[in-house]
């Protein structure tokens, strides 16, 4: 029997925590980018600039909520909600500690992959509904990029699934008690990380929203809090990507001395900072290079990785 009150409490805690974290990450990223560029970053609002996101939010709410007259209004308004909803839905299956999970599905990874595929729709229809050329070009890129990177995102996860013998995320973490999957599955980790960066539209794979060429890509026409939703959605997917990497390849909540929640939080933060560091360092790749790299390099590597892992698992099973 499901304990409803406990589930409801977990939902509230995870939802509140994750949304607050996503808001804070906007400040954290700007601050870190500043520090890495020998500046301070936003440090005026609140202690050390801590309330910068709040100030940004007030500003965004006060802005004119402009819907372009040439846009498809219903879809245009609906899209930002899809971004946030799909990102938040994925958190339902993220096990933070053994008991601290909303829905411990036995096919949690598939649910995660499905939700990240749905998130692709928001980008595509958002760009389409905007009815402007920059948004349209951005969403065209997003379609091509997500189609190619979705494939080996699934493939590179399958290695971890084979080793753990389960689609359940909690069981995958438990299977890493003696050895983190990053060691036997290093190629899988790299593939998943790259695919995740492409999925979250982060540098070096942020072609759909390349500021230099496409203004802001698929959300060029959005303003006010609708733009804010895209923004929060992006940071939600950064958190989600980091959390999934930690769960699949870095032993989730497992670790000595400290309580499981702290371990999970620490590991996730390291990957969030790494993603910001990549943003601060690497340039954006060219779009044809992005696709050829995906299909010609990462895809074969993911397949070889899956083949070898499957062979080893079968050989061990005798």
């Amino acid at each position: 029997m499901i304990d409803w009150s406990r589930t409801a409490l977990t939902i509230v805690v995870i939802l509140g925590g994750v949304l607050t974290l996503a808001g804070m990450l906007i400040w954290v990223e700007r601050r870190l980018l500043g520090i890495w560029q020998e500046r301070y970053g936003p440090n005026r609002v609140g202690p050390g600039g801590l309330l910068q996101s709040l100030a940004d939010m007030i500003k965004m709410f006060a802005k004119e909520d402009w819907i372009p007259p040439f846009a498809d209004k219903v879809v245009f308004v609906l899209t930002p909600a899809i971004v946030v909803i799909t990102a938040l839905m994925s958190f339902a299956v993220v096990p933070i500690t053994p008991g601290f999970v909303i829905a411990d599905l036995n096919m949690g990874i598939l649910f995660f992959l499905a939700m990240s595929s749905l998130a692709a729709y928001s980008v595509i229809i958002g760009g389409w509904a905007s009815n402007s050329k920059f948004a349209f070009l951005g969403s065209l890129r997003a379609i091509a990029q997500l189609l190619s990177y979705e494939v080996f995102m699934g493939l590179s996860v399958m290695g971890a699934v084979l080793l753990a013998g389960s689609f359940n995320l909690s069981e995958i973490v438990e299977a890493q008690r003696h050895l983190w999957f990053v060691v036997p599955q290093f190629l899988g980790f790299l593939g998943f990380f790259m695919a995740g960066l492409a999925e979250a539209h982060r540098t070096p794979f942020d072609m759909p929203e390349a500021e230099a060429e496409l203004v802001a890509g698929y959300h060029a026409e959005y303003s006010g809090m609708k733009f804010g939703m895209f923004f929060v959605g992006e940071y939600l997917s950064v958190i989600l990507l980091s959390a999934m990497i930690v769960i699949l390849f870095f032993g989730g909540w497992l670790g000595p001395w400290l309580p499981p929640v702290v371990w999970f939080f620490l590991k996730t933060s390291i990957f969030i900072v790494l993603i910001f560091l990549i943003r601060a360092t690497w340039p954006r790749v060219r779009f044809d290079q992005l696709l050829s790299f995906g299909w010609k390099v990462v895809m074969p590597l993911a397949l070889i990785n899956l083949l070898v892992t499957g062979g080893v698992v079968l050989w061990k099973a005798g």
Partner: protein
Amino acid sequence: MMKTWKYIRDLVLGLWIVFKRTFTKPVTVQYPEERPYLPPRWRGRIVLTRDPDGEERCVACYLCAVACPVDCIALQATEDPTAHERRYPEFFRINFSRCIYCGYCEDACPTYAIQLVPDFEQSEYARRNMVYEKEDLLISGTGKYHGYNFYRVAGVKVLDKDKGQAEYELPPVDVRSLMP
């Protein structure tokens, strides 16, 4: 293969180089609390100075207004009959919303009257407040050149000084005594 390895090494090296910046001090000067150092010859706000006796240095020669590339200086010369027809500006007006702080006026000035001082905080809410009149420009001190007094070194007759009484000046020559 070597090339691929080099690419990967460079990418990771780049990450490390950027990460090292975490531990360096930002170069930002946090302005309202921290002030930048302005050298004494910094070209900022324009002032009109006085000579050591407390008189206006400006002799209203119009050279600054002529030198000004953006025509932001306007003045009107007049003469003071009590000080032996000493010239001074009746009004002196600088439009700082035009001024480009080039310092040509200071270069052109024969009496060190107009000077640029290290001050850049001239923001105003209304544009008309950027127009400074003589009473806004005139300061009570000597500015950057403390001892200089134009009338004490120039061979011009003023109230208490006749020709030939200036510093390093010989008495006027009686031209008739120069006959061969």
